[in-house]
């Protein structure tokens, strides 16, 4: 039995401990906001927070997050929308939107440790997240906007 906390709710998992966190979230807990993109930690669509740190859930076995706090897109805005989500909306970032949960989780983690990231820092933090629709320019703008709003 593996104990983890997901979006503030304690959970017990008795399935295969090797199962990546992504599939536990999606197929077992039905938290489908976290997406499957590559299964190899290459695209970032599956990004969640593990104890506040941006983590690729597709390559993270459930047993590795025993006793840890997991936050998914569904739990990001504890009281309504997180500032990063508001900035995303103001900037009209999403096109198809499939990668955006991962992008938003990655950006939220960046701003939590670096509230005023520079151009290079944004690029470095976000370059692991692929957007095939090509919304990068707006992602960058939204991060800057959220950074200002949160200051």
């Amino acid at each position, binding site marked *: 039995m593996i104990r983890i906390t997901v979006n503030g709710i304690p959970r017990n998992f008795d399935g295969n401990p090797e199962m990546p966190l992504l599939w536990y979230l999606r197929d077992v807990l039905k938290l*489908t906001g976290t997406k*499957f993109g*590559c299964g190899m930690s290459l695209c970032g669509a599956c990004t969640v927070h593990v104890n506040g740190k941006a983590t690729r859930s597709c390559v993270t076995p459930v047993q590795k997050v025993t006793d840890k706090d997991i936050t998914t897109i569904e739990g990001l805005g504890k009281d309504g929308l997180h500032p990063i989500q508001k900035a995303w909306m103001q900037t009209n970032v999403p096109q198809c939107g499939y990668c955006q949960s991962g992008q938003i989780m990655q950006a939220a983690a960046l701003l939590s440790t670096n509230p005023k990231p520079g151009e290079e820092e944004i690029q470095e933090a976000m370059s692991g997240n692929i957007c095939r629709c090509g919304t990068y320019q707006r992602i960058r703008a939204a991060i800057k906007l959220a950074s200002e709003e949160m200051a």
Partner: protein
Amino acid sequence: MTVTVSVSRRVFLKGMFSAGALILTVRYSRNPLLAAADASINSLADTATLHPSVYLGIETDGTVYIVAHRSEMGTTSRTSLPLIVADELDADWKRVRIEQAIGDVRYGNQNTDGSHSIRSFYGAMRVAGATARSMLIQAAALQWGGLAADCSTDIHVVIHRPTGRKLQYGELASAASKIKVPLESEVKLKTKNSWIYIGRGTPSYDLEALCTGKPVFGMDAEREGMVYASIAHPPVFGGKVKSCNASEALKVKGVRETIAIEPFKPPCGFQPLGGVAVIADNTWAAFQGCKRLDIVWDHGPNVTFNSSDFKKELQDTSHRPGKVVRNEGDVDAAFAKGGKIVEADYYVPLLAHASMEPLVALAEFKDNKVTVWAPTQNPQAVQDIVSKQLGIAKEDVTCHVTLLGGGFGRKSKPDYVAEAAVLSKKIGRPVKVVWTREDDIKFDYYNTVAAMYLKAALDTKGKPIAWLQRSVFPPIDSIFDENTVYGPARHLQQGWTDIPYDLPNLRIENGPAKAHVRIGWLRSVANIYHAFAIQCFSDELAHVTGQDSAEYLLNLIGPKRVLDLRDTNYLNYGASYDEYPFDTARLRRVVELACEKSSWGKRKFPAGSGAGIAVHRSFLSYVATVVEVSVNDQGQVRIPRVDTVVDAGLIINPEATRAQFEGAMVFGASIVRSGEITATNGVINQSNFFDYPVARMDESPFQSNIHIVDSDAPPAGVGEPGVPTFVAAFCNAVYAATGKRIRELPMGKYNFS
């Protein structure tokens, strides 16, 4: 006729079928018995009190239901088309509920590709909204005992101008539903100056949902009792299973069983590829089980396919005379006269779609009927292939369209949906088929590999007096007829037969090529390789003759005129040539504006930096792009700035249009930098984002400025036309910065350090 309409409407109002079907156009009509057989196909718009069109219904509480009948994959068509209805209706957008249509012929064409959602349905959407508005006005006039001519509308309300009285749309819905639906010819459309949404646009209807992880993509669809499937497909196109040992797969916890899927009967069309499916309790178990299958394959004849040999074959063919598809003047005689001769070979490899959402579909077979939930660009094609695969009537296939996590053309081909339906029938449960990223890249319908040969003879001023261009590519049509080897008119028209240059002697040819993989369409399709070749060759000629690239381009285009394309089989993207002529004045204008916006020729670039330009008309839109690059000592290429000028006629949603072009620049960056699928012994070599990389933030344009030309011309495409100009302009910019001419994609083959 009048009787038919009113009777039908009464039938419909009992919830049986759509009256709008009869009113809008005959083409959209459906058999009422079929609808009655399955009540679930009725939309909320269908069952709303006032329902003058298949696209629209108004409830007594004032809620306006608008049907989005095209698929949403990021282009915002799910918002922009209903917005047109809302505008003509004078509806309050906040009271509009958008419903996603199931696949159904009564909506007309639902194949969301070819950048024509707005173009093809702008008129129908306006009529739908205006029809309802007219009925609401008549109902109000009746109620007031006044004249309809004295009434007008404001947001969600009818006003009696002489008295200032007002009635809300919801209050009028019931009375309006009793009014005879006016004919299309009787409906008065708004004038441009009274538009409230068209041209202004609005953010995506799904914006907040998309930022909070809420919307349902295909990957997120669920049914009670559903199981998951992962499929081992034949590694070589056309292969089949010789034998399969599933014992290790069945040991994986959560794996239930394995099921064989029959190989397709040629031609492949949209049939499943065949293989072995692993059925499991969750996605991960299905993936693990699939990896543990021990399958011996019969690879079939395509095992001899090797990309490096094939490239040589295509290029050799491109150096031999081909089928003439356009011929003006006498190219051979002009070449024989001499002048400066320039020749070049251009090459674009197979390209994969790699949408962020890998292919996925959920199907439930029950009582000899199937319901599917799929991220599909073409729900009617889903009905078609699923019905054929299962031997049931097309009407017994209900296809719900989820949001699409990207599509780019791949999700128009519903082989993956058919897989889910076949499996659900076999095991009697809802089945969700999930493709891995590896499946997605290895079993794509690739944008075709193409070789282009170009030759020009220049006069003393550097102007071409003779121009020969020959392209060779395995055609998309090979998936429907394996013996097809020549490019069909609908792909040759894409930037090849419609070369817009003022050339006294021109010959365009196409050579034969056989397909060894499934070929399909990808964002802008044949325009990618055709524009790359023509626009880069044009830049070569400018440099050879020592002229400015943009000026040279304008000289090539020549005087303002409508191109005469009568001597070639020019399809004009299915549009009327009278309504959408190829107008070089518009082509010239986007070039000139791109130069102005990018300060072309006015900026001094440091060593290792430079700018390139390209212009192209595709999907009836005129686009010019200027790309600026900088290359560092390590040979890394960065794109600090892009300026793209778009003349796509009337724009419904400018913000969405800008987003589409910003995205197209990134899509083009992926193609140029790293897009290449290759095969060895018939097996695709690439598998995931490490060996099929797509552009990341640092590899994409830092700043793309999208400039929209204000135009009253009829609306044209915006989803695809940004890709071809970016690809060529990027390569031309690299030449300006490094002196290295990219004639083969991807650019990774060249060293810039």
